[in-house]
């Protein structure tokens, strides 16, 4: 999946430290974990051996990876460890996970850190005690038939996804190839070499004979797991050879990200937009202008009147039921936002999925309503094709003309805009030197209840060159937004101004 990440220079073994386990205790930099432990808690050194110290270290390591582990979580972790047996690895791991990792993302980081942490802890202990595996060298060189046999076995194990078999086979594969090839010294390279030599690929390989599990391609995640096992075994061998731990690296973005694809991204946008709907429905400005229609809640008024001896002094009103919000979305599809347009369109797509009363427009030089396209077509790919082919945005020069867009928009929706409406603009506010006509935009913002601007450019570039976002920002709230996480920030920020106004 990400071979390049694994080829970091750190995985090259530290050359200066002499071999042999006896040298390890004198080299604190190799023994990173125990060393940091002593630095952090110097007061109770005697107690710091054993499990509590390890758990605290694990907590530290999780914090370093951005998991929010508070003291109360650590206390909980100790508490649960008092309740379960420590002999089952699964129970042990699950119990710690239940207390330390409190979201799916955290859980993923936890798994990675847990594996790495205890792998390292075991290895360093083994290196210190001088425990070595003897059987590795005793494997004899395999003949070609045996090798072919091994290939088939590995492919079958990957197809079935059996973890135990994969682990054993990984060791055999390493041993087999250790005889044939010189190790490159870089673990990531060796992993890929072995994988290639075994002919393991996710893509179908039709040239292989019928019945070979590799013919239809192997499951991608099994392949990734197998690579991880290879890597782990190679690391183990390296640690054994050098009697020294390579320094631990922080997790890369690729490691920690949940497996995702374009569809998963679209799903994530949909999920965020569903939150957006809830926020808009319950906390929007749509209550404006409804104060006069408040209905007296007889029940609660009577109840309140008890305090005044049955005389209804204080009137209680029925809570106002939130009305469905109405949304107007304007989406820039010009070339300057090409990189963000897929994201924008998926936001539009998700918005249409969620809101009934919604009209959407795309614009470049002029504006074009695309509400119908979204309503008639569910498939995201087809929608984007249709928009790019026949949305009719009068793409003469290919340059955005915001002034013209505003005036056309205002003409089209003038009568429909009201305080319950929310206007969202997706664009980079680059006018190509044309008049921004912020005055018309101000009219739009004044008529609509709330106006937001989502800008796909980093805030750093705002108002540089022909970007005129500052002119518009006076009348709306602008957000930097080109990832799902930022979209989520935007949704979260939606509540703030309302709370401020209410308080």
């Amino acid at each position, binding site marked *: 999946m990400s071979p390049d990440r694994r080829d970091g220079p750190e995985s090259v073994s530290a050359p200066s430290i002499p071999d042999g386990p006896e040298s390890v205790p004198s080299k604190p930099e190799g023994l990173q974990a125990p060393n940091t432990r002593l630095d952090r808690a110097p007061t109770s050194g005697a107690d710091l051996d054993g499990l*509590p110290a390890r758990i605290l270290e694990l907590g530290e390591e999780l914090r370093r990876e951005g998991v929010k582990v508070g003291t109360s979580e650590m206390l909980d972790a100790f508490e649960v460890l008092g309740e*379960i047996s420590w002999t089952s690895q699964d*129970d042990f791991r699950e119990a710690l996970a239940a207390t330390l990792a409190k979201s799916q993302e955290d859980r993923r980081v936890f798994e990675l850190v847990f594996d790495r942490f205890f792998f390292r802890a075991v290895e360093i202990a083994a290196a210190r005690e001088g425990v070595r595996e003897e059987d590795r060298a005793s494997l004899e060189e395999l003949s070609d038939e045996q090798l072919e046999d091994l290939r088939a076995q590995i492919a079958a194990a990957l197809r079935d996804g059996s973890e135990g078999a994969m682990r054993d086979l990984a060791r055999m594969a390493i041993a087999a190839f250790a005889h044939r090839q010189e190790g490159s010294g870089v673990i990531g390279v060796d992993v890929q070499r072995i994988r290639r030599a075994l002919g393991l690929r996710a893509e179908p390989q039709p040239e292989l004979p019928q019945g070979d599990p590799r013919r239809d391609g192997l499951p991608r995640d099994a392949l990734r797991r197998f690579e991880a096992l290879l890597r782990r075994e190679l690391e183990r061998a390296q640690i054994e050879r050098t009697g020294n731990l390579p320094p631990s690296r922080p997790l890369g973005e690729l490691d920690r990200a949940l497996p995702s694809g374009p569809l998963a991204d679209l799903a994530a946008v949909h999920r965020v937009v569903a939150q957006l709907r809830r926020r808009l429905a319950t906390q929007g400005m749509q209550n404006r202008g409804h104060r006069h229609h408040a209905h007296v809640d007889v029940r609660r008024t009577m109840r309140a009147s008890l305090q005044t001896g049955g005389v209804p002094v204080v009137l209680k009103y029925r809570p106002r039921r939130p009305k469905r919000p109405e949304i107007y979305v304007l989406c820039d599809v010009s070339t300057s936002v090409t990189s963000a347009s897929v994201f924008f369109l998926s936001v539009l797509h998700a918005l249409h999925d969620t809101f009934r009363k919604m009209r959407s427009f795309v614009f470049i030089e002029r504006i074009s309503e695309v509400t119908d396209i979204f309503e008639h077509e569910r498939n995201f790919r087809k929608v984007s094709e249709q928009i790019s082919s026949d949305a009719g945005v009068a793409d003469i020069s290919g340059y955005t003309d915001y002034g013209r867009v505003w005036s056309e928009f205002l003409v089209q929706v003038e009568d429909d805009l009201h305080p319950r409406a929310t206007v969202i603009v997706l664009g980079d506010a680059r006018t190509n030197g044309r008049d921004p006509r912020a005055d018309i935009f101000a009219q739009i913002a004044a008529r609509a209840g709330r106006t937001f601007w989502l800008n796909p450019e980093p805030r750093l570039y705002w108002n540089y060159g022909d970007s005129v976002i500052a002119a518009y920002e006076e009348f709306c709230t602008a957000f930097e937004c080109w990832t799902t996480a930022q979209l989520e920030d935007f949704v979260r920020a939606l509540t703030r101004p309302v709370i401020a106004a209410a308080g």
Partner: protein
Amino acid sequence: MSVPPSSAPAPLADAPASVADVAAGLRSVGYLPGESTALVSFLATRLGKPVLVEGPAGVGKTELAKALASYLGRELVRLQCYEGLDEAKALYEWNYRKQLLRIQAEASDTGWDAVQEDIFGEEFLLARPLMTAIASEQPVVLLIDEIDKTDQEFEAMLLEVLSDFQISIPELGRVESRTHPIVLLTSNNSRELTEALKRRCLYLWLDYPALEHELEIVRLHTPELSETVARRLVEVIGMVRALDLKKPPSIAESIDWARALLLLGVKEIDTDTFMETMSVIVKHRTDMDVVADRVGLKLSAPADVA
């Protein structure tokens, strides 16, 4: 070796002794827990900490609470969350009608002070789910369902209840829990919950079960269905879930489908049966097209999987 001093309450009186006990107990009431589910349930009963259960819709989050309640022989108190849920609906409310009647019945010959003291007694309190759970004589299982549907303010109010198991009523004083309820909060992950709430809970992520596990669940609920059909059914469900759908089929829907197939006396799941009964597991117009396209065709192909 010294473990930091723990403020853990003593294990609940009826707490099970081991994880295996919990797993067996949940099984005995018709819920097949995964490994982590059994473990976290066990920890919840031992430590008396609330459990936050997250996962996609229809993986048995609510069922878990019901199963726990019936396994432990406790009453289940359920608080269904929704937008705009407030304290009056969740905690307590004064029964104003009764208060009114009381005033009218006694107004003529009693002084104001006596009446006032009278009408704010426990007799006039309408206990809502949280209050019921806390004031109950018998230990209960409290299920706070779909906590992500409420607003953050409500979450903040919950904190007090969840950490101290007590409720303050201005007119009455403090109501403290007599027994320790087991609290389960469920969330569909549609909103990020606050850190403060998460910190007080154990975390359990429930996902769609693995194939074998789901097969076991289906077999448990429809023992009459033949093994081969059940296996095929679970495989098809797995295929459907792998697609990008608006609403992937839940475990409950697999069971419904199994029952439907049983009623129809189906011996084998082929394209026709699938098309006819698909509506049991797929409930969106657009999803149906996708599923018919992808899975329906696959079924018609000769079974080269075997």
